């Protein structure tokens, strides 16, 4: 996989990937890094029918950031509210940290048309914030 950085503010780092075509996202997504995330998504989706996002390195993602990722599909519900990105496309999430899977299921966005979670790629997460140790140590 070749990659080149498209955003890095020290908290959130996004690199573009070519095989598969998409982005690898690492760090924390909240409102301070949200503009960087949205810009990177917008820049990467033009003309693409399929976008691959590797989330293995995401240590925190708030609801608004998750919405931005889901809306990269161009789902109708995003478009009507002005949060869409034009045409619809497939967005495949890889190595999704377990907590992001949980939140997707709670909010029901896991069934958004066009969104797919790479079934083999659920990540135990990149390790937690300082102080938040893991239960068990197998991972």
């Amino acid at each position, binding site marked *: 996989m070749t990659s080149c950085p498209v955003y890095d503010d020290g908290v959130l780092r996004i690199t573009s990937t070519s095989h598969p075509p998409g982005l690898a996202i690492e760090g*924390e997504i909240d409102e301070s890094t949200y503009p960087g995330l949205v810009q990177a998504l917008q820049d990467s989706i033009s003309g693409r029918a399929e976008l691959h996002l590797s989330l293995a390195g995401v240590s925190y993602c708030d609801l608004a950031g998750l919405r931005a990722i889901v809306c990269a599909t161009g789902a109708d519900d995003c478009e009507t509210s002005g949060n869409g990105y034009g045409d619809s496309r497939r967005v495949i999430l890889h190595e999704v940290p377990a907590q992001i899977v949980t939140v997707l299921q709670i909010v029901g966005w896991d069934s958004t048309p066009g969104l797919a979670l790479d079934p083999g790629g659920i990540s135990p997460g990149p390790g937690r914030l300082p102080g938040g*140790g893991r239960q068990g140590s197998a991972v």
Partner: protein
Amino acid sequence: MRTDGAFRHWACIYDSDQQFVQTAVPFLAEGLAAGDPVLAVTTPAHLELISAALGPRGGEVDYAESAFFGRRPAQRVAAFYRYWKNHVGGRGGNGGGVRILAEPVWAGRSAREIAAWTRMESALNVVLAPASISMICPYDTRTLDPDIVTGALHTHPAQITGSRLSPSADFTEPAEFARSCDTGPLPEPPDGAAAFPFDGDLRGLRRFIAGRAAAYGVIGDRADILVLAVSEVGAYLKNSGPGTAAVRTWEQPGAVVCDFRQPGLSIDDPFLGLRPARLEPSAGDGLWLANQVCDWLEIRSGADGSTIQLQVPSRHDQEMAAQPGLRYRG
């Protein structure tokens, strides 16, 4: 009776199995005959009664035991909404609605919980207003405290007996009802609570609460859930007011509590945190998510500002340990 259009919410106050069956079964059978999605959320004993009365058609009824269909009020609202959305919500406005028989669990609940569930019964009228759901909530006068039955008359616009509807004269406008539930102050943080002066730095807030969680022995998924909830509350406060809040956290028997106090912020919406988040963004979505994963999320607002207090299970909680795979106590 018509069940299309917006949310309809009726109480069925009964004192015998026969009365229960006479109201519940025609309601469910009519829905089946119309091809509408039909859900019964009640006790195992009542599920048996319904099944026997419906005969072979009973197999088409979706069902859940009450205790497992939304453990807490906020999750119950979300469970109703999810059922509706999954069955008709995405198909435009022309289809029929769904029918839900929803008998809450009251036995064994604390006074605080009874107040929260009664408040939810009222809030449903507003929060689910756009959803084409017809809901009957059975109340058994043989077993319930009379105050709970009285509450049902305040929280349901109409009563139903058999197929006969009668308006409830005691129905209270839901916002007014919710505010009447929220008059008591939330507990003050104890001396020795850990404090964090939140100035809008969400990363700092997350590190503070992650550190405290570890100190309280709350680790792994539970710590993630607490960090998520606290960060979403912080984001809401940051976007709603001066953006500075006194954050304090402490452990009490069975729970870790986090308390946010923001002077100068007025929160007027009594249903904040109860409206299910959608892809269309709405203020309060983050509080809704926090409310889904916490045991409690309570809001008070007055002349001197607003308080938001949330609560998650302490390290002594064994429910999650007893159910491998459960990532939050839902």
